[in-house]
């Protein structure tokens, strides 16, 4: 499947949760399949921390660049693009094409950099609603995402209850725990204390806070994998014949983390990383309801599919069960699956046959 990324431009200002206003913005997106005449088969995919609008397929000029959820989305796949019109989008504040810190600030003509406002999950969803309007989609057959993407799928059902028929919430949490926030803060500190960060104004200095980004990514990666998966994959295998008794790489896992950190720091923007982790930290749909998630979900009208992975300790199954409980309290139509795939948080990206069979069956029952 060859796809072409597109951009939509929105010139009406977007008022953000923080009170700041984005005077104008662009959203990068891709579409797969065809919108039917009734416009009833659209599915919005929301991505997690470091992914993009490139959900499935490849580019004509870059055949090795396969979309991040290509195993899930495509012709004959669990989310079948022969039947559904699927939209991948890059949220605002990101660094893959939608307006973010690396984009020009219309007021100055220079990149926003540190001046780009902090955005929230609610802001992302509001911006995505503009994209839906632009594409002529009044109501989505489904909004779907994993991890941070799942927060968006959930928020869609709360921000625009009438515009979502099904909300598919995978490897989610209704709000971050203190431990989750703690990991994010360590990542942010790694970036902000990098001498090349310059208070976020590093573009004009021609440098990148590479060290901070590397460490942020290494910390993140640890939380994406289960202890068992990491042991299975790397064990205590040494990279050299005998221990060096120095501080070069001894263990395979050290090499892996450094490699992941190096790779990440070449393509990801530090200002974006700070903002995304803040969006995660702030997200709490129960905050305006005295902490009562059930009250917060009262306005939802969608049907829900919630899936968690028992090896996920970042957003554990217990956190998904909080979502399920709040949906049951509101008598929503909901199914909940607890999958015991071993990979940890990242399991939502893997093609576990039971996970895929469940999604295939669920999408198969969505009437168009």
């Amino acid at each position: 499947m060859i796809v072409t990324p597109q951009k939509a431009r929105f010139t009406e200002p977007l008022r953000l949760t923080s009170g700041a206003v984005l005077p104008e913005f662009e959203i990068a997106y891709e579409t797969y399949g065809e919108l039917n005449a009734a416009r009833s088969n659209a599915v919005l995919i929301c991505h997690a921390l470091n992914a993009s609008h490139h959900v499935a397929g490849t580019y004509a000029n870059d055949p090795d660049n396969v979309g991040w959820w290509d195993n899930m989305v495509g012709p004959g796949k669990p989310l079948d693009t022969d039947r559904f019109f699927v939209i991948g989008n890059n949220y605002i504040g990101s660094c893959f094409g939608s307006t973010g810190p690396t984009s020009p600030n219309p007021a100055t003509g220079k990149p926003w950099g540190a001046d780009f406002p902090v955005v929230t999950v609610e802001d992302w969803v509001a911006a995505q609603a503009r994209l839906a309007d632009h594409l002529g989609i009044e109501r989505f057959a489904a909004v779907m995402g994993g991890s941070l993407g799942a927060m968006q799928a959930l928020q869609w059902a709360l921000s625009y209850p009438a515009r979502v028929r099904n909300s598919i919430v995978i490897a989610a949490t209704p709000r971050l725990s203190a431990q989750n926030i703690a990991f994010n803060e360590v990542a942010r500190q790694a970036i902000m204390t990098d001498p090349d960060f310059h208070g976020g104004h590093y573009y004009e200095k021609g440098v990148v806070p590479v060290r901070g980004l590397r460490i942020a990514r290494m910390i993140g990666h640890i939380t994406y994998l289960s202890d068992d998966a990491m042991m299975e994959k790397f064990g205590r295998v040494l990279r050299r014949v005998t221990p060096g008794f120095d501080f070069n790489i001894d263990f395979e896992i050290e090499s892996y983390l450094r490699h992941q950190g190096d790779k990440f720091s070449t393509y990801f923007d530090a200002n974006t990383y700070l903002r995304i982790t803040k969006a995660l930290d702030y997200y709490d749909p129960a905050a305006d309801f005295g902490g009562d998630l059930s009250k917060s979900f009262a306005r939802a009208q969608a049907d829900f599919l919630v899936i968690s992975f028992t090896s996920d300790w970042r957003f554990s199954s217990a956190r998904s069960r909080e979502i399920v409980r709040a949906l049951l309290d509101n008598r929503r139509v909901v199914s909940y699956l607890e999958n015991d795939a071993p990979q940890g948080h990242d399991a939502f990206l893997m093609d576990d046959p039971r996970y895929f069979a469940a999604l295939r069956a669920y999408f198969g029952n969505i009437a168009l």
Partner: protein
Amino acid sequence: MTEAETIARWISPGSRVLDLGCGDGKLLRHLWLTRQAPGYGVEIDDAKAIACIHNDVNVLQLDLEDGLAAFADSSFDYVILSETLQAIHRQEPLMKEMLRVGREAIVSFPNFGYWKARIQIALAGHMPVSKELPYQWYDTPNVHHCTLVDFEALCDKLGFKVLERLVLTDAQPVFLLPNLFGSLAVYRVSA
């Protein structure tokens, strides 16, 4: 008369139903189609839970042994435990949970006092293996078998009222010596 027909007759149209150990969701589907009773199933098995999704039945993949913490007090009219009681490790807390969450509980189980089971133990001297109890003793999900007498004694102990009872053999109601001639018991109880 099948067990599903019995249960469908007992529940009033439109009531809210929770089916514990719901398998592929067949009973819930039946209750929805015949009584317009919306509900949820609880099923631990992967393949069965996926079958529920395929059958368009709400399913929650939870372990009954962990209790029913996902469900609020009195949030259902009926909580059903169909041919699953014998596979539960701790019946007492689960029975209490069922009547915390539901107004009434409907429980069915294979009657271990059925004459064929008794004969296999008493005369042949081995654990019963039959249509109703198809497992060898060393390879069975069942852990606590009981008879009608045993179950009613448990209800007594827990202070639960038996509101209705139907005993079946080969889908026929049994009225004569049900603890001897009935292979499947279906009870409706309340707190």
